[in-house]
């Protein structure tokens, strides 16, 4: 009897999980469906069955060079993540293993920078980028995205590092390991799942960032967010084309997320259950 109840409960939870997953995934699914419709079908109203035309993909391809935008997205997302992690690992180490009285305050302050509306600092940043010659450059955008995501990277790594017993690092020190040796040979291998999931999440955040990537680029460094924005039209039907552009833009990150989901979940739940 107890077994039957357990199976039923399990089934209910499974169905509930599927429903929630479907609700979360539905906007993406509907975008893909809309991309396979004609413009008239796309604006006609809610309809889950498209005519499976690839017309919009053809239009999108003929109007813009997808590969150029894609490469910019890859360089900016991966570059900003790599630099961010390089800076965040020592920062998180010091906060986790050598905290001071002000460590908590610094962590909170770092997080508070994420609460500031980006539009409020657009003009100062625009002027800085102009003066340093960074407008429409991949280097400028990499630095920008690294900076805006750094608080999250530091916070995540700090949380993971705190789960690692300090005694292990102490033992390494006793055996004569230098500071870098301790971080590189002892801490990093133990924190691989956490670092990997932080990097994956940061790549996703950088890939999807639209405010700065659209406003600080024109032609050379414009990533896929600018590619999508170029298909919204003030006069004329554009929903199918916009959906096709969005599908092309999110496809790489969806595929990456699909293949790395185990790693991502393992990292995100790292230390959650003891």
């Amino acid at each position, binding site marked *: 009897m107890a077994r039957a109840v357990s199976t039923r409960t399990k089934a209910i939870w499974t169905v509930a999980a599927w429903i929630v997953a479907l609700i979360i995934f539905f906007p993406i699914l509907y975008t893909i469906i809309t991309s396979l419709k004609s*413009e*008239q079908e796309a*604006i*006609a109203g809610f309809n889950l069955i498209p005519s499976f035309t690839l017309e919009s993909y053809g239009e999108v391809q*003929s*109007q*813009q060079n997808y590969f150029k935008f894609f490469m910019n997205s890859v360089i900016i997302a991966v570059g900003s993540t790599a630099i961010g992690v390089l800076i965040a690992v020592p920062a998180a180490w010091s906060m986790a293993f050598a905290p001071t009285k002000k460590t908590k305050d610094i962590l909170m302050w770092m997080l508070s920078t994420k609460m500031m509306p980006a539009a409020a600092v*657009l*003009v100062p940043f*625009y*002027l800085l980028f*102009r003066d340093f010659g960074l*407008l*429409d450059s991949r280097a400028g955008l990499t630095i920008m995205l690294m900076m805006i995501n750094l608080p999250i990277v530091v916070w995540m790594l700090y949380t993971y590092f705190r789960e690692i017993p300090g005694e292990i690092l102490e033992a390494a020190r006793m055996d004569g390991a230098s500071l870098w040796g301790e971080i590189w040979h002892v801490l990093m291998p133990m924190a691989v799942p956490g670092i990997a999931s932080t990097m994956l999440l940061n790549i996703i955040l950088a890939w999807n960032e639209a405010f700065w990537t*659209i*406003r600080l680029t*024109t*032609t050379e460094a*414009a990533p896929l967010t*600018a590619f999508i*924005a*170029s*298909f*919204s*039209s*003030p*006069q*004329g*039907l*554009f929903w199918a084309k916009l959906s096709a552009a969005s599908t092309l833009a999110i496809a790489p990150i969806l595929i990456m997320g699909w293949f790395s989901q185990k790693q991502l979940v393992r990292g995100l739940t790292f230390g959650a259950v003891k």
Partner: protein
Amino acid sequence: MRLTTLVLGLCTASALAFAAHAESITIATVNNGDMVRMQKLTDDFTKKNPDIQLNWVTLEENVLRERVTTDIATKGGQYDVMTIGTYEVPIWAKQGWLLPLDNLGADYDTADIIPAIAGGLSVDGKLYAAPFYGESSFVMYRKDLMEKAGLTMPDAPTWDFIVDAAKKMTDRANDVNGICLRGKAGWGENMAFLTAMSNSFGARWFDEKWQPQFDQPEWKKTMDTYVSLMKEAGPSGASSNGFNENLALFQQGKCGMWIDATVAASFVSDPKNSTVADKVGYALAPDNGLGKRGNWLWAWSLAIPAGTQKAAAAEKFVSWATDKAYLELVASKEGWANVPPGTRTSLYNNPEYQKAAPFAKMTLDSINSADPTKPTVKPVPYVGVQFVAIPQFQSLGTQVGQLFSAALAGQMSVDDALAQAQATTVREMTRAGYIK
């Protein structure tokens, strides 16, 4: 070793020579049919000007406006040519943000630009932007439904006729709405239509002393007519309908009449996309016998920011894209029906264009009947037919648009919407220093 040095030297020299030779200009533009077509035809420009390369930045209208405003105000120098509207040109020219277009070439026929359009793009007699395409607004109507209702659309209808016809053409059982009008909030959406409509009712945004006028009976009459007409004969959910939504409704045969941009005529008469292509008639925007019609004036135009380092190349491009020869180029590749309309008088005298575009005469008449310098029945201190050419208008227009959209959706009464519009406008104009 010597050979390697020589080869490297030659490569560097060639690269430098090419870099010095080819100049690239960046053009910011919006994504619409005419602009996309221009991008596809740029081979013609680069053949004639092999020393100039073109880079395109295409953005959504509001993002583009924000991007170019930031760039031009901070002298970022990211763009050499910008696509801007009739609203921005007088404001930006007065700020010294745009270069006057004095060197468009000896063959460039400036006098051929439609006077009303040229007037909207000039300050103190100098042209600051060259129109790429221009538009007014007019009535597009279903001839078959009008006939079924036992009515004949005059070339210049009154609002009384439009209201009566809309009610008679409405057939809820067959999902036909007598009239489709903009309801989506935004200074360039519902407020473009409502400001133009209010002009024909004798209303105005401000009196000569910049005092807001939403508490006057003319605005009350405008809004009462609009809301009651849309309730009786408009589509459901009209408060979220903008240009594109109404275009789709009309193309699907769900609107008896649609008052909107003249550029829509080419979409609704295109048999590839419109189910009612052969049943559409055109008429001037309605009036109330007060001397002003409810039609607007707009032009997407190419301008050169004052901060550009490549003014000469930019001007060559602007000249190419807005010259008469460009219209002939489009016609030769894609037919006369696809040339960008509303910029040149000669286009409307062209028999081939008249044949390809049955709405040509009505478009020109509509454009000519709009006067941005005298847009209203009573005198006003501003320029602009469906907008007020002051920097504060984007924000003000959108705030008021949200109130009027809420009135259309039934979330507040017309009286409340007008009272709040008046209070908001008085507050903002006082803050901006217009009201002392």
